[in-house]
């Protein structure tokens, strides 16, 4: 993982609603869209919590966890490239969402609010890892050098599950190249690409998360994809 943590755009407010303080601009509200199922569920959970019916709220929250778990893991893993850390980051995000469900406002899709909390957690973990890596060198990674070590080590665990050594090697190389390429993206481009490509968010939703307008998000997405294509050996 790159030692640079450049995706700072959503780090300011961990659990606030998307209208929280952001460095560039206050995010604009997406237009009047009908409330999605998970947003409706989140509102119900908030009301249950406010009435003190915690057991019922927890039970209903399980539905939200099941609905967003895989997508959250995909985003967290792309950010962190480490299964255990991604697992923890997702758990933390869900717990944080439940703890602060009172601050959720239905004007925003639940997905946007949750994803923002998740990404903030991932960015915090990346920063913590950078600080940690300055002092600690994993013993099993000493043989691997520099950037390649940082890229290969986290993915090593599941790549090694494959039986065929050649397939294992190829998969590891592919992961390393992919991770290195994503790490070379500029911070905002990387965030936009992660959210649009791995998080299945629309440019409008991403704009709401990081405080950019939709067309700017499209430009970042395009530049990120084009740069990745160049870095990974494809055409620009």
């Amino acid at each position, binding site marked *: 993982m790159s030692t640079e943590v450049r995706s700072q755009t959503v780090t300011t407010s961990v659990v606030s609603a998307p209208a929280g303080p952001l460095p560039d601009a206050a995010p604009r509200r997406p237009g009047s869209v009908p409330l999605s199922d998970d947003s409706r569920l989140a509102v119900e959970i908030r009301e249950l*919590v406010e009435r003190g019916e*915690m057991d019922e709220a*927890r039970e209903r*929250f*399980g539905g939200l*966890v*099941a609905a967003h*778990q*895989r997508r959250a*893991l*995909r985003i967290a*893993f*792309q950010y962190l490239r480490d*299964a255990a850390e*991604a*697992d923890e980051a*997702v*758990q933390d995000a*869900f*717990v944080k969402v*439940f*703890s602060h469900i009172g601050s959720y406002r239905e004007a925003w899709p639940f997905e946007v609010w949750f994803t923002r909390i998740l990404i903030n957690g991932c960015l915090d973990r990346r920063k913590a890892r950078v600080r940690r890596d300055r002092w600690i060198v994993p013993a099993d990674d000493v043989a691997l050098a520099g950037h390649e070590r940082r890229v290969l080590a986290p*993915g090593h*665990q*599941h790549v090694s*599950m494959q039986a065929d050594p050649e397939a294992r090697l190829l998969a590891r190389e*592919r*992961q390393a190249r*992919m991770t290195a390429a994503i790490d070379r993206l500029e911070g905002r481009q990387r965030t936009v690409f992660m959210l*649009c*490509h*791995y998080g*299945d968010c*629309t*440019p409008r939703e991403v704009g709401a998360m990081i405080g950019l307008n939709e067309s700017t998000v*499209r*430009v970042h*997405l*395009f530049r990120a*994809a*084009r740069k*990745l*294509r160049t870095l*990974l050996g*494809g*055409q620009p």
Partner: protein
Amino acid sequence: MIVRAPHLQDDVLYDCYYAERRGEPVDPPSAEHLVDCETCARRYADVGAFLTTLSVDAENDVDALFPPERLRQQQQDIAKRLELVGRAARVITFPGRRSVAMAQPIRTSRTRITTRWIAAAAAAGLFVGVAAGTFFNFVPGFDFSSHARRAGIAAGARQVSQSLPSHLSPVKTAVEIVDPDKFMSDLESVLDRPHTSELIAFDALTPHMREVRDFAR
């Protein structure tokens, strides 16, 4: 004359891809152009293949790392953590102390109080003893051992002289005749005196400690 439309820009191709992927309608003029223009259709297919590969790889990574059982485990972990949300923080007792739940009314027995008093008295006595010893050791000129020894010798001499018959009383005992201080002083002077003849004159001119001490007495 047929004017051929310019090729689509790259950003339009990417927009088309993401719109199609999300199931949204593609921009109609762009969609029409992709149908008509073979070059743009090929470019679009390349872009789509590249981005789809990225997605598939990511999906495979996550599927390999998080199989259904691990997802279930994670859901359980989250549920456990949510159980603690909203509850008051629990104060953990210091290891070795009795927990609050196990705490019973404290009954201090009489034996225990006595033991404590004895221990306190012993400690106080020890402290006083050490303090007194330290004090007497630091008083200048006070030599407890030499005083005791002299007092013992004098008492012994008096006892001996009283027990003797009257005609023998003028005879002094060896203890009274020989003053130990004087004897030791003489002995020291003999030993300290220089044996070299050239230094005897200088020694005679130099004041000695014993002379100063005798003068002081």
